[in-house]
């Protein structure tokens, strides 16, 4: 099966091509083609997983490589191909599973219910139904390709394909047809801006990543994963001291971290992810929670041998601190958001911070484990939130409340996802999050500063995670409805939507056991040959913190349910801090006042230069040419044309005289000839 791993890319891209070229008129055919494509990829991915599992950790030491030459560069070739190591194998299984669930869910989600002017309910497909499935198929191509890439350049290509899909899908509702009722014009404007913001913000990270890639290529001369992680190649970049005073390994690792910060929405480039929630909810689930944003974490995991070298220690510290800070920072913002999807977006940023921090403290297995479990439970949370939005028609939690009576399955699914997110045993998030915390705890106890700082921040983040998730549950599903008309309109989603929810809920509940120490931690053994020991103190602290957070949420929102128009109890408690959190620490405003204003000023300066200097020069040259042209024209008219005309006039007049000679009478000619002959004879005779 390893030899056919490329099929995971071929199936979805074929689906994309078919939909774009042939099937875009038929909504059903497009949807089922996309699902068939991802299902094919799923079969291949699980085939690979089944073949890889018996090999165990041997596969990590000797990954499977298949590659061919792509294009020449000097004496060497850039290659293309696929690489299968335990990380890629589990990622393949995770990505295809979540993708399939989300694709199926989308079949229902992209049908909208809306009321006509008489108040009757109608259902109709989104007019861009086929396009949606084409985009998500292309996205699946990008993600699966990235996972199996055998070199950094190929990985970058797929990375950018995903960036493109992300842009297209965030801005999916940036054009509104007059017949559409499920989106309004304000939303269209927001979608446009969000798509641009996401694309430009991640672009910053991408450029930094690209520079790191170039630096690596200059030093090592290849980007193939099987060549850059050899001891000889690593020695090349760990022993040379750059002008910055550190080995180039540290610089390259820092630059690659830049790519991760952009793609995985880490501080300070996290601002695009919450806005990305303007896209359809399955997209938020798939791209902006479960898979694409995980690509940044995957990148660090993929380049882990480089980060692991002692020379790259400064970069590792940066990874750990960026991740831990982001985890805490985003979790606090999540407390003060009213949009159900935005809370989840900040939660995603926070959880990605957990993974990055885990990798930063060298807890490779824990970080990748959290990557996998998070994908399942975050996809579940998003799809449940999507189901809520689909039913009630708004994102605003202040207009929800009491939905558990109307949407039982969704409520249950959401709560399962929420428990997993909070890290309550035995749900998936507990095992992975606990392992990260336990690793940090164990290292922190040994007196290492960075893991200690990371641990404190992550514990804080865990508390806030439980608090905002609890707030979400109580505000959305419990209490009394705060917007009665919307509540009456609410309905449970169709089976095509809740069946994927149920399957993902099963995963969110049980997937954690593959990494549970009580079952021998098969996941960690497979991925990193680690056997984590269950630390009861660390686990006790983290569960205690989570329960405390949930308890506080119950006290604030569960005990006395919020009434319509009532002030949020947290805002009374926090005072000015609430304003700060609600405005996301004003990061957007700070960027607006600094980076964006500077960019606009710089652009205005350039525009002025363009207008006065560049255009001025061009205009001057043009004016001179025009003048010179006028002079030439004068010469042409008076001299050149004058000469030609004079020749013509002369010929005309002269021929007018000659015409008189040609009378057309033969006898005249004869007379002239004879006269001439006589004349010549006479001249001859008198000579």
């Amino acid at each position: 099966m390893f030899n056919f791993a490329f099929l995971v890319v071929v199936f979805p891209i074929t689906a994309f091509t078919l939909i774009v070229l042939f099937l875009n008129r038929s909504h059903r055919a497009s949807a089922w083609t996309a699902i068939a494509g991802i299902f094919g990829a799923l079969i291949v991915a699980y085939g690979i997983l089944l073949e890889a599992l018996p090999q165990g950790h041997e596969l990590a030491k000797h990954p499977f490589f298949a590659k061919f030459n792509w294009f020449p560069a000097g004496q060497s070739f850039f290659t293309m191909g696929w690489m299968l190591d335990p990380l890629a194998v589990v990622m393949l299984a995770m990505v295809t599973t979540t993708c399939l669930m989300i694709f199926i869910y989308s079949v229902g989600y992209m049908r909208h219910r809306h009321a006509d002017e008489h108040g009757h309910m109608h259902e109709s497909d989104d007019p861009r139904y086929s396009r949606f499935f084409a985009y998500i198929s292309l996205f699946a191509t990008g993600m699966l390709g990235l996972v199996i890439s055998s070199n950094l350049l190929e990985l970058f290509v797929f990375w950018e394909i995903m960036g493109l899909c992300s842009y297209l899908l965030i801005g999916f509702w940036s054009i509104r047809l007059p017949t559409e009722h499920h989106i309004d014009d304000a939303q269209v404007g927001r979608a446009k801006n969000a798509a641009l913001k996401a694309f430009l913000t991640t672009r910053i990270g991408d450029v930094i990543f690209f520079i790191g890639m170039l630096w690596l290529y200059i030093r090592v001369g290849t980007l193939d994963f099987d060549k850059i992680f050899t001891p000889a190649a690593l020695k090349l970049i760990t022993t040379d001291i750059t002008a910055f005073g550190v080995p180039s390994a540290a610089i390259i690792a820092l630059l690659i971290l830049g790519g991760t910060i952009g793609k995985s929405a880490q501080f300070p480039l996290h601002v695009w992810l919450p806005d990305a929630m303007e896209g359809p909810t399955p997209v938020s689930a798939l791209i902006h929670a479960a898979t694409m944003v995980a690509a940044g974490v995957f990148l660090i995991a993929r380049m882990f041998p480089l980060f692991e070298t002692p020379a790259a220690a400064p970069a590792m510290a940066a990874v750990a601190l960026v991740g831990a800070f982001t985890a805490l920072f985003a979790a606090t913002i999540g407390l003060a958001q009213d949009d159900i999807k935005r809370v989840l977006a900040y939660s995603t940023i926070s959880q990605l911070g957990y993974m990055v921090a885990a990798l930063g403290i060298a807890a490779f297995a824990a970080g990748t484990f959290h990557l996998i479990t998070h994908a399942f439970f975050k996809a579940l949370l998003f799809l449940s939130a999507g189901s809520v939005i689909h039913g009630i028609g708004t994102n605003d939690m202040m207009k929800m409340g009491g939905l558990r009576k109307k949407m039982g399955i969704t409520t249950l699914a959401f709560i399962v996802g929420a428990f997993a997110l909070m890290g309550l045993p035995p749900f998936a998030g507990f095992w992975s999050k606990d392992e990260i915390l336990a690793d940090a705890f164990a290292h922190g106890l040994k007196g290492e500063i960075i893991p200690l700082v990371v641990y404190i921040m992550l514990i804080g983040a865990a508390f806030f995670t439980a608090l905002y998730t609890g707030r979400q549950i109580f505000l959305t599903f419990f209490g009394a409805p705060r917007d009665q008309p919307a509540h009456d309109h609410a309905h449970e989603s169709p089976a095509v939507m809740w069946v994927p929810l149920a399957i993902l809920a099963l995963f969110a509940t049980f997937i954690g056991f593959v990494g549970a120490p009580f079952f021998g931690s098969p996941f960690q053994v497979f991925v990193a040959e680690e056997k984590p020991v269950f630390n009861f103190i660390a686990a006790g602290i983290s569960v205690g913190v989570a329960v405390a957070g949930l308890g506080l949420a119950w006290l604030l929102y569960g005990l006395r349910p919020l009434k319509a128009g009532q002030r949020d109890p947290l805002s009374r408690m926090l005072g000015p801090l609430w304003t700060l959190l609600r405005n996301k620490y004003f990061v957007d405003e700070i960027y607006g006042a600094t980076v964006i204003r500077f960019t606009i000023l710089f652009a205005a300066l350039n525009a002025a230069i363009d207008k006065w200097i560049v255009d001025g020069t061009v205009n001057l040259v043009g004016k001179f040419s025009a003048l010179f042209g006028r002079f030439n024209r004068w010469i042409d008219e008076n001299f050149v044309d004058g000469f030609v005309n004079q020749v013509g006039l002369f010929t005309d007049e002269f021929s007018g005289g000659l015409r008189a000679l040609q009378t057309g009478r033969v006898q005249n000619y004869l007379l002239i000839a004879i006269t001439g002959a006589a004349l010549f004879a006479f001249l001859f005779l008198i000579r």
Partner: protein
Amino acid sequence: MTFKGFMIPLTNYLVLSLALFCIGLFGALARRNAIAILMGIELMLNAVNINLVAFWRYVKPAQPAFDLTGQIFALFVITLAAAEAAIGLALIIAIYRSRDTVNVEDVNLMKG
């Protein structure tokens, strides 16, 4: 024409030939009828023939028995005149058929 002790002088022949040529030239230039013009041309050619034969006789040839240049020249001219008459008449008939006239004053298509 070799009568013993008496020969008509060459001048007489030349005067005859000149008269004949001038009559022919006047006909060719002054007549309006195309046929008459053709006849004038014939007269001019024959004036030339008289000249040729007369000069052959009076300008002493080295061996008169063999040197027949003037005679042969005259024969050529006669042949040519016959051909010319044939072509000229054919042209005149063609003009007559197309324009219903043989008056050369009316045939001035080539007037510039």
